[in-house]
Protein backbone atom coordinates (compact mmCIF):
# COMPACT_ATOMS: atom_id res chain seq x y z
CA UNK A 1 0.00 0.00 0.00
CA UNK A 2 1.16 3.54 -0.80
CA UNK A 3 4.17 2.15 -2.69
CA UNK A 4 5.41 0.66 0.57
CA UNK A 5 5.69 4.03 2.31
CA UNK A 6 2.94 3.46 4.87
CA UNK A 7 5.32 2.18 7.62
CA UNK A 8 7.59 5.19 7.04
CA UNK A 9 4.67 7.62 7.39
CA UNK A 10 3.45 5.86 10.54
CA UNK A 11 7.00 6.04 11.93
CA UNK A 12 6.83 9.77 11.22
CA UNK A 13 3.53 9.91 13.08
CA UNK A 14 5.22 8.38 16.13
CA UNK A 15 7.97 10.97 15.87
CA UNK A 16 5.46 13.83 15.55
CA UNK A 17 3.61 12.53 18.61
CA UNK A 18 6.76 12.28 20.69
CA UNK A 19 7.81 15.81 19.65
CA UNK A 20 4.36 17.14 20.56
CA UNK A 21 4.17 15.27 23.87
CA UNK A 22 7.68 16.29 24.96
CA UNK A 23 7.04 19.90 23.95
CA UNK A 24 3.79 19.85 25.91
CA UNK A 25 5.58 18.70 29.06
CA UNK A 26 8.16 21.46 28.65
CA UNK A 27 5.41 24.01 27.89
CA UNK A 28 3.54 23.03 31.06
CA UNK A 29 6.73 23.54 33.05
CA UNK A 30 7.37 26.99 31.53
CA UNK A 31 3.66 27.79 31.88
CA UNK A 32 3.60 27.00 35.60
CA UNK A 33 6.85 28.90 36.17
CA UNK A 34 5.48 31.88 34.21
CA UNK A 35 2.16 31.86 36.03
CA UNK A 36 3.90 31.53 39.41
CA UNK A 37 6.19 34.40 38.39
CA UNK A 38 3.32 36.66 37.36
CA UNK A 39 1.42 35.94 40.57
CA UNK A 40 4.48 35.97 42.84
CA UNK A 41 4.15 39.60 43.84
CA UNK A 42 7.87 40.13 43.39
CA UNK A 43 8.02 42.97 40.88
CA UNK A 44 11.23 41.93 39.12
CA UNK A 45 10.05 38.36 38.58
CA UNK A 46 6.60 39.48 37.38
CA UNK A 47 8.25 41.90 34.94
CA UNK A 48 10.47 39.11 33.61
CA UNK A 49 7.42 36.86 33.09
CA UNK A 50 5.63 39.73 31.32
CA UNK A 51 8.57 40.28 28.97
CA UNK A 52 8.60 36.53 28.23
CA UNK A 53 4.91 36.34 27.27
CA UNK A 54 4.92 39.62 25.31
CA UNK A 55 8.02 38.79 23.28
CA UNK A 56 6.79 35.30 22.38
CA UNK A 57 3.36 36.54 21.27
CA UNK A 58 4.91 39.15 18.99
CA UNK A 59 7.02 36.86 16.80
CA UNK A 60 6.00 33.97 14.48
CA UNK A 61 6.72 30.43 15.72
CA UNK A 62 8.88 29.63 12.69
CA UNK A 63 11.16 32.64 13.27
CA UNK A 64 11.47 31.86 16.99
CA UNK A 65 12.26 28.26 16.13
CA UNK A 66 15.03 29.26 13.70
CA UNK A 67 16.30 31.86 16.17
CA UNK A 68 16.52 29.39 19.05
CA UNK A 69 17.74 26.46 16.94
CA UNK A 70 20.66 28.34 15.37
CA UNK A 71 21.17 30.90 18.13
CA UNK A 72 21.01 28.34 20.93
CA UNK A 73 23.60 26.23 19.14
CA UNK A 74 26.02 29.16 18.83
CA UNK A 75 25.44 30.43 22.38
CA UNK A 76 25.96 26.97 23.84
CA UNK A 77 29.18 26.41 21.93
CA UNK A 78 30.49 29.84 22.93
CA UNK A 79 30.04 28.80 26.56
CA UNK A 80 31.55 25.35 25.98
CA UNK A 81 34.53 26.87 24.15
CA UNK A 82 35.20 29.19 27.04
CA UNK A 83 35.12 26.25 29.43
CA UNK A 84 37.57 24.41 27.19
CA UNK A 85 35.14 21.70 26.07
CA UNK A 86 34.70 20.30 22.60
CA UNK A 87 32.07 21.31 20.03
CA UNK A 88 28.51 20.19 20.82
CA UNK A 89 25.74 19.68 18.28
CA UNK A 90 22.23 20.18 19.59
CA UNK A 91 20.13 17.59 17.82
CA UNK A 92 16.97 18.83 16.10
CA UNK A 93 14.74 16.92 18.53
CA UNK A 94 16.11 18.73 21.57
CA UNK A 95 16.09 22.09 19.80
CA UNK A 96 12.62 21.58 18.36
CA UNK A 97 10.94 20.43 21.55
CA UNK A 98 12.69 23.06 23.68
CA UNK A 99 11.61 25.79 21.25
CA UNK A 100 8.01 24.62 20.98
CA UNK A 101 7.86 24.17 24.74
CA UNK A 102 9.29 27.63 25.33
CA UNK A 103 6.84 29.26 22.89
CA UNK A 104 3.70 27.54 24.12
CA UNK A 105 4.80 27.93 27.71
CA UNK A 106 4.08 31.61 27.17
CA UNK A 107 0.51 30.86 26.06
CA UNK A 108 0.02 28.41 28.94
CA UNK A 109 1.34 31.04 31.36
CA UNK A 110 -1.75 33.14 30.63
CA UNK A 111 -4.04 30.09 30.80
CA UNK A 112 -2.62 28.91 34.13
CA UNK A 113 -2.58 32.40 35.58
CA UNK A 114 -6.26 32.86 34.76
CA UNK A 115 -7.09 29.41 36.14
CA UNK A 116 -5.32 30.09 39.44
CA UNK A 117 -7.04 33.47 39.77
CA UNK A 118 -10.41 31.80 39.15
CA UNK A 119 -10.11 29.86 42.41
CA UNK A 120 -11.60 31.85 45.29
CA UNK A 121 -8.86 33.34 47.44
CA UNK A 122 -10.48 31.96 50.60
CA UNK A 123 -9.60 28.42 49.53
CA UNK A 124 -5.85 28.80 49.90
CA UNK A 125 -6.28 31.05 52.95
CA UNK A 126 -8.35 28.34 54.64
CA UNK A 127 -5.75 25.73 53.72
CA UNK A 128 -2.98 27.85 55.20
CA UNK A 129 -5.07 28.40 58.32
CA UNK A 130 -5.23 24.61 58.69
CA UNK A 131 -1.45 24.59 58.77
CA UNK A 132 -0.79 23.16 55.29
CA UNK A 133 2.60 24.01 53.82
CA UNK A 134 2.63 26.07 50.62
CA UNK A 135 3.63 22.94 48.65
CA UNK A 136 0.63 21.08 50.13
CA UNK A 137 -1.68 23.98 49.28
CA UNK A 138 -0.47 23.85 45.68
CA UNK A 139 -0.79 20.09 45.35
CA UNK A 140 -4.06 19.51 47.22
CA UNK A 141 -6.05 22.72 46.80
CA UNK A 142 -4.84 24.80 43.86
CA UNK A 143 -3.82 22.22 41.23
CA UNK A 144 -6.95 19.99 41.38
CA UNK A 145 -9.24 23.01 41.11
CA UNK A 146 -7.35 24.96 38.46
CA UNK A 147 -7.53 22.01 36.04
CA UNK A 148 -11.20 22.71 35.33
CA UNK A 149 -10.57 26.38 34.54
CA UNK A 150 -7.42 25.64 32.56
CA UNK A 151 -8.79 22.97 30.21
CA UNK A 152 -10.42 25.22 27.55
CA UNK A 153 -7.29 27.38 27.15
CA UNK A 154 -5.08 24.32 27.44
CA UNK A 155 -7.01 22.54 24.66
CA UNK A 156 -6.60 25.55 22.41
CA UNK A 157 -2.84 25.81 23.05
CA UNK A 158 -2.35 22.08 22.57
CA UNK A 159 -4.15 22.14 19.20
CA UNK A 160 -2.10 25.12 18.00
CA UNK A 161 1.08 23.44 19.21
CA UNK A 162 0.25 20.12 17.56
CA UNK A 163 -0.16 21.94 14.26
CA UNK A 164 2.93 24.08 14.85
CA UNK A 165 4.95 20.89 15.42
CA UNK A 166 4.80 20.42 11.62
CA UNK A 167 7.37 23.25 11.47
CA UNK A 168 10.09 21.13 13.11
CA UNK A 169 10.58 19.49 9.70
CA UNK A 170 12.07 22.81 8.58
CA UNK A 171 14.92 22.60 11.12
CA UNK A 172 15.64 19.04 9.98
CA UNK A 173 13.64 16.85 12.33
CA UNK A 174 12.49 13.57 10.83
CA UNK A 175 8.78 14.02 11.59
CA UNK A 176 5.62 13.15 9.65
CA UNK A 177 5.93 16.12 7.27
CA UNK A 178 9.55 15.26 6.50
CA UNK A 179 8.69 11.60 5.83
CA UNK A 180 5.81 12.68 3.59
CA UNK A 181 8.07 14.97 1.57
CA UNK A 182 10.62 12.15 1.13
CA UNK A 183 7.88 9.76 -0.01
CA UNK A 184 6.40 12.47 -2.23
CA UNK A 185 9.62 13.10 -4.12
CA UNK A 186 10.46 9.39 -4.42
CA UNK A 187 7.06 8.38 -5.79
CA UNK A 188 6.12 11.67 -7.51
CA UNK A 189 2.80 11.58 -5.68
CA UNK A 190 3.05 14.66 -3.45
CA UNK A 191 -0.69 15.25 -3.17
CA UNK A 192 -1.36 11.71 -1.99
CA UNK A 193 1.22 11.83 0.78
CA UNK A 194 0.49 15.36 2.00
CA UNK A 195 -3.23 14.51 1.99
CA UNK A 196 -2.54 11.41 4.08
CA UNK A 197 -0.65 13.31 6.75
CA UNK A 198 -3.33 16.03 6.68
CA UNK A 199 -5.87 13.31 7.52
CA UNK A 200 -3.62 12.00 10.28
CA UNK A 201 -3.32 15.51 11.75
CA UNK A 202 -7.11 15.86 11.54
CA UNK A 203 -7.49 12.56 13.40
CA UNK A 204 -5.09 13.76 16.10
CA UNK A 205 -6.93 17.07 16.56
CA UNK A 206 -10.31 15.31 16.61
CA UNK A 207 -9.18 12.81 19.24
CA UNK A 208 -7.69 15.68 21.28
CA UNK A 209 -10.91 17.70 21.16
CA UNK A 210 -13.03 14.70 22.18
CA UNK A 211 -10.63 13.55 24.88
CA UNK A 212 -10.12 16.95 26.47
CA UNK A 213 -13.86 17.69 26.23
CA UNK A 214 -14.52 14.49 28.18
CA UNK A 215 -11.89 15.51 30.75
CA UNK A 216 -13.48 18.94 31.15
CA UNK A 217 -16.90 17.39 31.75
CA UNK A 218 -15.38 15.07 34.36
CA UNK A 219 -13.65 17.89 36.19
CA UNK A 220 -16.85 19.99 36.09
CA UNK A 221 -19.09 17.26 37.52
CA UNK A 222 -19.78 19.19 40.69
CA UNK A 223 -20.43 22.50 38.97
CA UNK A 224 -23.80 23.60 37.70
CA UNK A 225 -23.72 25.60 34.47
CA UNK A 226 -25.81 28.73 34.03
CA UNK A 227 -28.69 27.80 31.74
CA UNK A 228 -28.90 30.63 29.24
CA UNK A 229 -31.69 29.19 27.11
Amino acid at each position, binding site marked *: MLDGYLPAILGGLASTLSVAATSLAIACLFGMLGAAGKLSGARAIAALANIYTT*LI*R*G*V*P*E*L*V*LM*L*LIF*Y*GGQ*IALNAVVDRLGGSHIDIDPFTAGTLTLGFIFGAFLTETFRGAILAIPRGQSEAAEAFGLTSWQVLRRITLPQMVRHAIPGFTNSW*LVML*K*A*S*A*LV*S*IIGLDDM*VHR*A*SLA*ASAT*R*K*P*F*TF*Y*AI*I*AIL*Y*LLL*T*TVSILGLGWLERRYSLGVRKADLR
Partner: protein
Amino acid sequence: MIDWVVITSSIPAFLSGLKITLILLALSCASGFVLSIPLAVARVSAQRRFWLPVFLFTYIMRGTPLLVQMFMVYHGLAQFEAVRDSFAWVALKSPWFCAWLVFTLNTSAYTTEIFAGALKATPSGELEAARSLGLTESAIYRRILLPSALRRALPQYGNEVVMMMHATAIASTVTLVEITRVARDVYYNHLTVTESFGVAAVIYFVLTFSIAGLFKLVENRVLRHIPPTARGDA
Protein backbone atom coordinates in the same frame (compact mmCIF):
# COMPACT_ATOMS: atom_id res chain seq x y z
CA MET B 1 28.87 41.37 19.30
CA ILE B 2 26.36 42.69 16.82
CA ASP B 3 27.84 43.22 13.38
CA TRP B 4 26.23 46.49 12.26
CA VAL B 5 27.76 46.29 8.80
CA VAL B 6 25.78 43.10 8.11
CA ILE B 7 22.62 44.77 9.40
CA THR B 8 22.97 47.97 7.39
CA SER B 9 23.88 46.07 4.24
CA SER B 10 20.81 43.85 4.57
CA ILE B 11 18.34 46.70 5.21
CA PRO B 12 17.18 46.90 1.55
CA ALA B 13 16.56 43.13 1.47
CA PHE B 14 14.57 43.28 4.70
CA LEU B 15 12.55 46.24 3.40
CA SER B 16 11.57 44.37 0.26
CA GLY B 17 10.78 41.33 2.44
CA LEU B 18 8.58 43.53 4.61
CA LYS B 19 6.78 44.74 1.52
CA ILE B 20 6.05 41.18 0.39
CA THR B 21 4.87 40.16 3.86
CA LEU B 22 2.50 43.13 3.97
CA ILE B 23 1.16 42.51 0.45
CA LEU B 24 0.54 38.84 1.26
CA LEU B 25 -1.19 39.83 4.50
CA ALA B 26 -3.36 42.50 2.90
CA LEU B 27 -4.44 40.33 -0.04
CA SER B 28 -5.20 37.27 2.09
CA CYS B 29 -7.06 39.19 4.79
CA ALA B 30 -9.13 41.14 2.25
CA SER B 31 -10.26 38.05 0.34
CA GLY B 32 -10.63 36.01 3.54
CA PHE B 33 -12.85 38.72 5.02
CA VAL B 34 -15.08 38.92 1.95
CA LEU B 35 -15.39 35.13 1.82
CA SER B 36 -16.11 34.66 5.50
CA ILE B 37 -19.20 36.87 5.72
CA PRO B 38 -21.46 34.69 3.53
CA LEU B 39 -19.83 31.59 5.07
CA ALA B 40 -20.64 32.83 8.59
CA VAL B 41 -24.26 33.50 7.60
CA ALA B 42 -24.45 29.95 6.22
CA ARG B 43 -22.72 28.60 9.34
CA VAL B 44 -25.46 29.93 11.64
CA SER B 45 -28.27 28.81 9.31
CA ALA B 46 -30.83 26.39 10.74
CA GLN B 47 -30.77 24.32 7.56
CA ARG B 48 -28.30 21.50 7.49
CA ARG B 49 -27.52 21.83 3.77
CA PHE B 50 -26.11 25.28 4.55
CA TRP B 51 -24.32 24.86 7.86
CA LEU B 52 -22.90 21.35 7.39
CA PRO B 53 -20.61 22.05 4.39
CA VAL B 54 -19.31 25.22 6.05
CA PHE B 55 -18.74 23.37 9.32
CA LEU B 56 -16.78 20.65 7.50
CA PHE B 57 -14.71 23.27 5.67
CA THR B 58 -13.77 25.16 8.84
CA TYR B 59 -13.18 21.93 10.77
CA ILE B 60 -10.75 20.59 8.17
CA MET B 61 -8.93 23.90 7.66
CA ARG B 62 -8.62 24.49 11.41
CA GLY B 63 -7.64 20.88 12.16
CA THR B 64 -4.64 20.59 9.84
CA PRO B 65 -1.31 22.47 9.85
CA LEU B 66 -1.02 25.44 7.49
CA LEU B 67 2.36 24.10 6.32
CA VAL B 68 0.74 20.86 5.14
CA GLN B 69 -2.06 22.77 3.39
CA MET B 70 0.55 24.87 1.64
CA PHE B 71 2.52 21.81 0.49
CA MET B 72 -0.66 20.08 -0.68
CA VAL B 73 -1.49 22.97 -2.99
CA TYR B 74 1.98 24.11 -4.07
CA HIS B 75 3.74 20.75 -4.46
CA GLY B 76 0.70 18.45 -4.47
CA LEU B 77 -1.50 19.68 -7.31
CA ALA B 78 1.28 19.08 -9.88
CA GLN B 79 0.67 15.36 -9.35
CA PHE B 80 -2.45 15.47 -11.51
CA GLU B 81 -2.02 15.71 -15.24
CA ALA B 82 -5.49 17.21 -15.60
CA VAL B 83 -4.41 20.13 -13.42
CA ARG B 84 -1.14 20.60 -15.29
CA ASP B 85 -2.96 20.63 -18.63
CA SER B 86 -5.75 22.96 -17.54
CA PHE B 87 -5.72 26.73 -17.97
CA ALA B 88 -5.60 27.11 -14.16
CA TRP B 89 -2.02 25.79 -14.20
CA VAL B 90 -0.74 29.23 -15.19
CA ALA B 91 -1.91 30.44 -11.77
CA LEU B 92 -1.34 27.25 -9.76
CA LYS B 93 2.33 26.92 -10.64
CA SER B 94 2.98 30.39 -9.21
CA PRO B 95 4.03 30.44 -5.54
CA TRP B 96 2.29 33.82 -5.17
CA PHE B 97 -1.05 32.42 -6.25
CA CYS B 98 -0.71 29.27 -4.12
CA ALA B 99 0.28 31.24 -1.02
CA TRP B 100 -2.61 33.67 -1.54
CA LEU B 101 -5.08 30.81 -2.11
CA VAL B 102 -4.00 28.81 0.96
CA PHE B 103 -3.81 31.86 3.24
CA THR B 104 -7.24 33.02 2.06
CA LEU B 105 -8.87 29.65 2.69
CA ASN B 106 -7.11 29.28 6.02
CA THR B 107 -7.95 32.71 7.41
CA SER B 108 -11.52 32.55 6.08
CA ALA B 109 -12.06 29.33 8.07
CA TYR B 110 -10.97 30.96 11.33
CA THR B 111 -12.75 34.24 10.53
CA THR B 112 -15.97 32.41 9.66
CA GLU B 113 -16.03 30.83 13.11
CA ILE B 114 -15.33 34.20 14.76
CA PHE B 115 -18.13 35.95 12.85
CA ALA B 116 -20.52 33.01 13.35
CA GLY B 117 -19.87 33.16 17.08
CA ALA B 118 -20.60 36.89 17.10
CA LEU B 119 -23.79 36.37 15.08
CA LYS B 120 -24.99 33.72 17.53
CA ALA B 121 -24.33 36.11 20.41
CA THR B 122 -26.87 38.63 19.07
CA PRO B 123 -29.39 39.51 21.80
CA SER B 124 -32.65 37.81 20.76
CA GLY B 125 -34.60 41.02 21.41
CA GLU B 126 -32.85 42.75 18.48
CA LEU B 127 -33.94 39.99 16.12
CA GLU B 128 -37.52 39.99 17.45
CA ALA B 129 -37.75 43.77 17.13
CA ALA B 130 -36.48 43.63 13.52
CA ARG B 131 -38.99 40.89 12.65
CA SER B 132 -41.90 42.68 14.24
CA LEU B 133 -41.03 45.78 12.19
CA GLY B 134 -41.53 43.62 9.11
CA LEU B 135 -37.95 43.73 7.81
CA THR B 136 -37.16 41.10 5.22
CA GLU B 137 -34.70 38.35 6.10
CA SER B 138 -31.94 39.92 4.00
CA ALA B 139 -32.57 43.37 5.44
CA ILE B 140 -32.31 41.92 8.94
CA TYR B 141 -28.86 40.55 8.10
CA ARG B 142 -27.72 43.68 6.27
CA ARG B 143 -28.95 46.26 8.75
CA ILE B 144 -29.23 44.57 12.13
CA LEU B 145 -27.30 41.33 12.55
CA LEU B 146 -24.10 41.83 10.54
CA PRO B 147 -23.25 45.41 11.58
CA SER B 148 -23.49 44.65 15.29
CA ALA B 149 -21.91 41.19 14.99
CA LEU B 150 -18.91 42.47 13.01
CA ARG B 151 -18.44 45.24 15.55
CA ARG B 152 -18.52 42.78 18.44
CA ALA B 153 -16.14 40.43 16.62
CA LEU B 154 -13.52 43.16 16.16
CA PRO B 155 -11.20 42.27 19.09
CA GLN B 156 -11.06 38.60 18.05
CA TYR B 157 -10.71 39.54 14.40
CA GLY B 158 -7.72 41.71 15.31
CA ASN B 159 -6.12 38.66 16.91
CA GLU B 160 -6.77 36.67 13.75
CA VAL B 161 -5.08 39.34 11.59
CA VAL B 162 -2.01 39.19 13.85
CA MET B 163 -2.01 35.38 13.63
CA MET B 164 -2.27 35.66 9.86
CA MET B 165 0.66 38.08 9.78
CA HIS B 166 2.71 35.50 11.69
CA ALA B 167 1.45 32.78 9.34
CA THR B 168 2.89 34.58 6.30
CA ALA B 169 6.28 33.29 7.51
CA ILE B 170 5.15 29.94 6.04
CA ALA B 171 5.35 31.53 2.57
CA SER B 172 9.14 31.34 2.96
CA THR B 173 8.86 27.58 2.36
CA VAL B 174 7.46 28.09 -1.15
CA THR B 175 10.22 30.39 -2.44
CA LEU B 176 8.56 33.73 -1.64
CA VAL B 177 11.21 36.13 -0.36
CA GLU B 178 9.32 37.67 2.56
CA ILE B 179 10.88 38.66 5.90
CA THR B 180 11.62 35.12 7.12
CA ARG B 181 13.18 34.09 3.79
CA VAL B 182 15.35 37.21 3.81
CA ALA B 183 16.46 36.31 7.34
CA ARG B 184 17.35 32.78 6.25
CA ASP B 185 19.33 34.11 3.29
CA VAL B 186 21.21 36.58 5.51
CA TYR B 187 21.91 33.74 7.94
CA TYR B 188 23.29 31.43 5.23
CA ASN B 189 25.48 34.24 3.83
CA HIS B 190 26.94 35.47 7.11
CA LEU B 191 26.20 32.67 9.63
CA THR B 192 25.17 35.18 12.27
CA VAL B 193 21.91 34.72 14.14
CA THR B 194 21.24 38.11 15.72
CA GLU B 195 21.76 39.97 12.45
CA SER B 196 19.40 37.63 10.57
CA PHE B 197 16.66 36.02 12.66
CA GLY B 198 17.06 38.61 15.41
CA VAL B 199 16.33 41.44 12.99
CA ALA B 200 13.36 39.51 11.56
CA ALA B 201 12.01 38.95 15.07
CA VAL B 202 12.24 42.69 15.81
CA ILE B 203 10.38 43.53 12.57
CA TYR B 204 7.61 41.03 13.33
CA PHE B 205 7.40 42.30 16.89
CA VAL B 206 6.92 45.90 15.75
CA LEU B 207 4.36 44.78 13.13
CA THR B 208 2.42 42.77 15.73
CA PHE B 209 2.03 45.69 18.09
CA SER B 210 1.32 48.15 15.28
CA ILE B 211 -1.56 45.97 14.06
CA ALA B 212 -2.81 45.43 17.60
CA GLY B 213 -2.63 49.19 18.21
CA LEU B 214 -4.52 49.95 14.99
CA PHE B 215 -7.29 47.58 15.98
CA LYS B 216 -7.45 49.16 19.45
CA LEU B 217 -7.98 52.56 17.79
CA VAL B 218 -10.80 51.24 15.60
CA GLU B 219 -12.33 49.43 18.57
CA ASN B 220 -12.32 52.58 20.66
CA ARG B 221 -14.28 54.24 17.90
CA VAL B 222 -16.85 51.64 16.98
CA LEU B 223 -17.27 49.97 20.36
CA ARG B 224 -17.66 53.20 22.31
CA HIS B 225 -21.18 52.24 23.39
CA ILE B 226 -20.03 48.97 24.94
CA PRO B 227 -18.40 49.21 28.38
CA PRO B 228 -14.77 48.02 28.33
CA THR B 229 -15.35 45.14 30.76
CA ALA B 230 -17.71 43.43 28.32
CA ARG B 231 -15.27 43.54 25.43
CA GLY B 232 -12.85 40.85 26.48
CA ASP B 233 -9.18 41.45 25.88
CA ALA B 234 -7.65 41.52 22.45
